[in-house]
């Protein structure tokens, strides 16, 4: 059956790839690829990245550079798009392989389902790379190869900053199991690896420190993402108190909502996720069993997605594509897990339905109040996210297997 499950995955991935070339998806999603193309072309022409504003992190840039030699054969954006699509296609199978190794080949079915519901966005971003690296880190951690695990986590952090939230948890588990020496060793390895990679990156690509700091600050400077939980709360508050939705604000290639009429100041919204993560850490660290590792990772990821002001649709992939690591039997034999899967699929589909399929109409709601159903669908999606969070926390709290 193993080969058949891979065949099913292949069919599902091909289906999403077909959607990916359809204008309804492609016209919205392709813009990021233009930026990747621009960076890669610049590198191919200059063999460095100095004097170019760059918002991407070193791992992501390395990924683009690794793909850029293909531009020597055909230096067009369409060719680069095909390269990105192919790279992500391969990454899907790498992730599937790790899912199989960590659980059972049946779980590839769950992964296939999630791919279908998440849609073509997976092909136009580099989230799959981060998921792949994070999963590799988790894989080696489970296999008791903590050093390799921490290196992969370092690579993931260098590609997107968010996997840093797993580091304290991994370190804590090792500290509990092996003591302080192991904790210090792993921390040092992590820091040394990340710093060495960074230095090599800055020197080889001739990137100034200012540009690098700019890339770190880029996401911080974004407004409160229009699809996120915070935006839903702010919008509902605005509708109740003023009768109209908040105004749209744009910044750093993101649409957000204004917090002018909201009762909480922006700095609280900016940093609320840190408090949430701390509370969640207290909860997950109170469990002695390391068998709760996966559930803890899922909850930590979800905490960031719910409580952070940043809410790009592709971020959901961080969480969704870790779900196939839950035992297949749990999904089929346990009402809560079945419900969890259905909710996650709803979240994935609604996200796709809003972005990119109806994004212009969705934004119109904030401009003139029209297409309110899209706004409420998005609110529903966020409620589903919170509900998933609740189910996972309750599951963890009950300490059930």
């Amino acid at each position, binding site marked *: 059956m193993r080969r058949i499950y891979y065949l099913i995955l292949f069919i599902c991935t091909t*289906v999403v790839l077909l959607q990916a070339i359809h204008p309804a998806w492609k016209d919205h999603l392709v813009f990021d690829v233009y930026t990747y193309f621009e960076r890669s072309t610049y590198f191919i022409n200059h063999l460095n990245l100095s004097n170019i504003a760059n918002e991407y992190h070193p791992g992501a840039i390395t990924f683009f550079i690794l793909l850029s030699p293909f531009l020597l054969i055909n230096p067009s954006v369409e060719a680069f798009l095909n390269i990105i699509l192919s790279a992500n296609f391969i990454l899907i199978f790498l992730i599937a392989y790790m899912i199989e190794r960590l659980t059972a080949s049946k779980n590839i079915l769950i992964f296939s389902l999630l791919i279908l519901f998440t849609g073509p966005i997976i092909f136009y971003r580099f989230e799959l790379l981060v998921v792949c690296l994070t999963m590799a880190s988790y894989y080696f951690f489970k296999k008791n190869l903590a050093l390799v695990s921490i290196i992969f986590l370092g690579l993931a952090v260098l590609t997107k900053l968010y996997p840093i939230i797993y580091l304290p948890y991994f370190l804590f588990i090792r500290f509990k199991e092996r003591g302080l020496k192991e904790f210090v060793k792993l921390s040092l390895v992590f820091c040394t690896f990340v710093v060495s990679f960074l230095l090599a990156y800055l020197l080889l690509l001739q990137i100034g420190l200012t540009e690098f700091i700019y890339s770190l600050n880029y996401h911080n400077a974004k407004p409160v993402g229009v699809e996120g939980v915070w935006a839903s709360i702010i919008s509902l508050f605005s509708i109740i108190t003023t009768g109209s939705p908040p105004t749209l604000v744009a910044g750093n290639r993101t649409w957000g909502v204004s917090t002018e009429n909201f009762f909480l100041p922006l700095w609280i919204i900016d940093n609320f996720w840190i408090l949430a993560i701390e509370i969640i850490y207290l909860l997950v660290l109170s469990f002695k069993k390391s068998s709760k590792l996966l559930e803890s990772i899922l909850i930590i990821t979800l905490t960031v997605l719910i409580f952070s002001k940043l809410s790009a649709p592709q971020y959901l992939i961080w969480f969704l594509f870790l779900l196939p690591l839950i035992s297949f039997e749990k999904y089929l034999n346990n009402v809560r897990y079945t419900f969890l899967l259905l909710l996650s699929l709803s979240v994935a589909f609604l996200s796709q339905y809003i972005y990119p399929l109806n994004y212009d109409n969705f934004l119109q709601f904030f401009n003139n109040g029209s297409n309110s159903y899209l706004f409420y669908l998005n609110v529903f999606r966020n409620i589903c996210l919170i509900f998933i969070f609740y189910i996972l926390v309750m599951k963890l709290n009950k300490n059930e297997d």
Partner: protein
Amino acid sequence: MKIDTFYLILFLGLAIRLSLAFLPGFYIDTNVWYAWALRLNESTFNNFYSPTVWTNYTPGYLYILSFLGAIRNLFNLDNNSFYYLLKLPAILSEVILTFVIYKVTLPKSKKLSKLLAIFIIFNPALIFNSSIWGQIDGVLTLALFISVYFLTIDKLIWSSALFGLAILLKPQALALTPVFLLFLINRFSIKSTLQLIVPTALILFLFSLPFFITNPIFGPLQLLSKMVDDYPLNSLFAYNFWGMLGFWINDGTFWQNLTYRGWGLLLISFYWLLITFFYIRRKLNLLNLATLALISFFFLPTRAHERYLYPGLVFLTISAWYFKSRVLIILTFILSVIHLLNLYFVYVYYNEIFQHQPYLFYWEPLYNLLDKGSKFFSFFSTVMFIILSYLILKLSHDKKVH
């Protein structure tokens, strides 16, 4: 709570189809569905058929179109949503078909039934037919399969009624007529004859009546005759025996004092003589008989469309399950891929080349290969047909011997 993995597979199959249904359907067919759905809601069924508007279609699916048109009017659906809605009956039929096949075959072996279901629900050619093209061969095949199943368990009235419904959906269902005839010859009695003929006739009459109130007997027959004469051509892009000569050649063309059509009928008659011989000697069961009937209907007579292979592919998969034959399933898979290429070529030719829709599936190397290699693919498919027929007969013989 315990859910079978099969349901997850079924859900996945449904999700794939729903994900692809957003893509544009086959321009001509989906626009015809669209126009008929509206027409059926603007006037009475009796006024549907017209000499001025092309309405050559049996009434079965028109009921479903009428229902879909009513939904459109009720919810004031926009065009995109309505085109999506028009694809849903075929998509749901394929899911139900898989479910029914799984349930019917389950008592023999759970693992094999699951494999059979996987091969049907994930067959890319079937997915393309319903979710992208927007055709309803899945609806027809569902009726055909249930009809054959009832025949195998001696529920003749139900089998006959389903057969009648299948003919109303698409007249290609008549491909199964020899199966029913052979069944009757083999087990002749007045009772079984009546049980097999009356329900079909009643269903055909009753469901046609609202469309032919003024001419209830000859009206449907005239319609059938018009449909048969709609395309008097050797092969309508079908990779079959006639495709080896090229497509769209008048089947009234003579060869050795006989028209192509005549040769086609002669070929299928010889084929059936052979099959009858095997059946009479009790070396073929009804299921495999139906498989041979459906695939031969695509490969041997003239006037076959590319999509006529659909029911044959489903039945071939079931035959592979029946014989537990790896070779048969591999050959069925290869034939499915060729069929998918056949559908792809026609879809791209009409939608993207002829109708100038935006390029979505057009890929020059593949399109050119299919365009220039159509005779080769027809030859290859025909060879596959011969091998498959031989294999089914041989496996039936071996099974009987053992």
